[in-house]
């Protein structure tokens, strides 16, 4: 019973007790994620029809064959718009991408936040599943983050909703921040562990193979073959930094080092492997989950304790001086 009580107290303390002063992390997640998705939307703008039309690179029948029936596809939305408004397929697709963009802007500004995040989440899912072959890891992580935006009170902080509808009831952002943090630890643990089970990340071959591909970055890395210790060092470094993230990010003395180490790794991925969207997504997730936690925010409880301690000292010294005078 005692053990259960300790577990319960610790869970309560970890998730709920520390009342943070602001929701910067959640506001950052909302703004940065929607801004990234808006830019991604514009990056794919010109090829949108080639990806999503029924006569695109991968035709509708082929794409739909592997989609579960509980997912609403863009093809179905297109059909619906065509039926309802008599639009052509191109116009219907044009409508879908504009609606998606407008609601992403709403989400970014924090206008009708909950509703906007639901629309963005469902449309993103539809776009993702309808062109599954064109999607990679980052797009799936966007689904997670948009799902979090639906559940989390991301519109309670630094939002137009607050300006227009007045400051809403305060919510403790800590439980939601904890979910983000746990999510990130799971991401890196599995990413690191999966790399560690093969031998190619240990002997540097994976790093060598990634960097030597000139189709990605155009930079010639063939000189690395003369310094094999470098890819080995980088490969082992990646395994360590990812697998140990879930421990080191909580250790006060080295969490800053680990945080910036992982950011540097993502910047390198963006620069050398051209995976800009993936890197930006992971950097946003890291900043939302840990930057403000490590650098900015002090627990309110801590401040209150400090404040009351100062007050007590002041009162005591006042009483002491009064007594002394008298």
């Amino acid at each position, binding site marked *: 019973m005692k053990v259960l009580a300790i577990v319960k107290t610790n869970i309560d303390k970890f998730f709920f007790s520390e009342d943070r002063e602001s929701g910067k992390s959640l506001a950052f997640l909302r703004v940065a994620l929607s801004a990234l998705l808006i830019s991604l939307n514009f990056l794919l703008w010109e090829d949108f029809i080639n990806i999503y039309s029924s006569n695109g690179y991968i035709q509708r029948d082929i794409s739909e064959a592997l989609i579960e029936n509980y*997912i609403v596809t863009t093809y179905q939305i297109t059909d619906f718009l065509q039926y309802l408004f008599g639009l052509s397929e191109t116009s219907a697709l044009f409508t879908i991408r504009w609606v998606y963009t407008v609601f992403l802007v709403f989400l970014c500004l924090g206008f009708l936040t909950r509703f906007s995040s639901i629309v963005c989440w469902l449309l993103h899912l539809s776009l993702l599943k309808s062109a599954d072959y064109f999607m990679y890891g980052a797009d799936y992580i966007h689904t997670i983050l948009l799902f979090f935006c639906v559940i989390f009170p991301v519109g309670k902080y630094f939002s137009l909703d607050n300006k227009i509808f007045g400051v809403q009831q305060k919510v403790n952002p800590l439980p939601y921040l904890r979910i983000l943090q746990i999510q990130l630890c799971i991401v890196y643990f599995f990413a690191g562990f999966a790399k560690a089970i093969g031998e190619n990340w240990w002997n540097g071959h994976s790093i060598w*193979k990634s960097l030597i591909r000139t189709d990605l970055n155009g930079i010639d890395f063939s000189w690395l073959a003369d310094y094999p210790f470098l890819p080995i060092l980088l490969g082992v470094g990646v395994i360590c930094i990812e697998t140990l993230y879930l421990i080191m990010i909580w250790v006060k003395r080295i969490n800053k080092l680990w945080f910036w180490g992982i950011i540097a790794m993502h910047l390198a991925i963006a620069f050398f492997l051209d995976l800009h969207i993936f890197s930006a997504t992971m950097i946003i997730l890291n900043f939302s989950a840990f930057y403000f936690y490590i650098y900015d925010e002090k627990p309110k409880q801590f401040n209150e304790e400090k404040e009351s301690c100062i007050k007590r000292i002041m009162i005591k010294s006042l009483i002491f001086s009064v007594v002394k005078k008298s």
Partner: protein
Amino acid sequence: MKKIVFLIFFSLYFFCSIIQNIANQEKSFSKLFYDSEEVEIIANLLQRNKYIYKSFHFISDYSGAETGFGLYAPNVSSQLVIYYTIRDENGLPVKTVQPRFKTKEIAQRFLTVYDVFLEKIKTNNLSDENKIYDEYLDLVVKSMAFKTLQENYPYRSIDADIYVHEIPPMEDYRNGEPPTYKHLFHYEYTLENIEK
């Protein structure tokens, strides 16, 4: 009460995410060490009850818990490339092309499309399910060939060749072995047989 609902909700979410990732790791593990995808204990356990299996996938798809985090793992896979050769009415090659992209982002995403053809490299003893998927992948190549042919109107004949970009280990590279493109598959289409 709110706290309990919150904890149960996210425990369920993380449970789905972790199970999905363990299943992925198991798949990579059995592929790597046993050269087989049959040793899938977690996946088989989930499939035992179709309602649990469906619910699990429904929750995972909508919440994003389906996401596998083992990116570029356990190994960085070899890059596949498809080249299309347009032929004139006499069957003579006119030009070799790749799909046209307007941005670098979509070009990057096309590399992801090519990655699915790595599944085609499995050669012997394909299970019935894998045979169907293999045929499905042929349809994907055909669809892309059709689109490329449309972009190169009025030509009516096209070949698709899939290559794998093989990169030698550092030591072999130092000894003069260059990266090569190894030919894997060849397809021939005409506008008539594509439209069928």
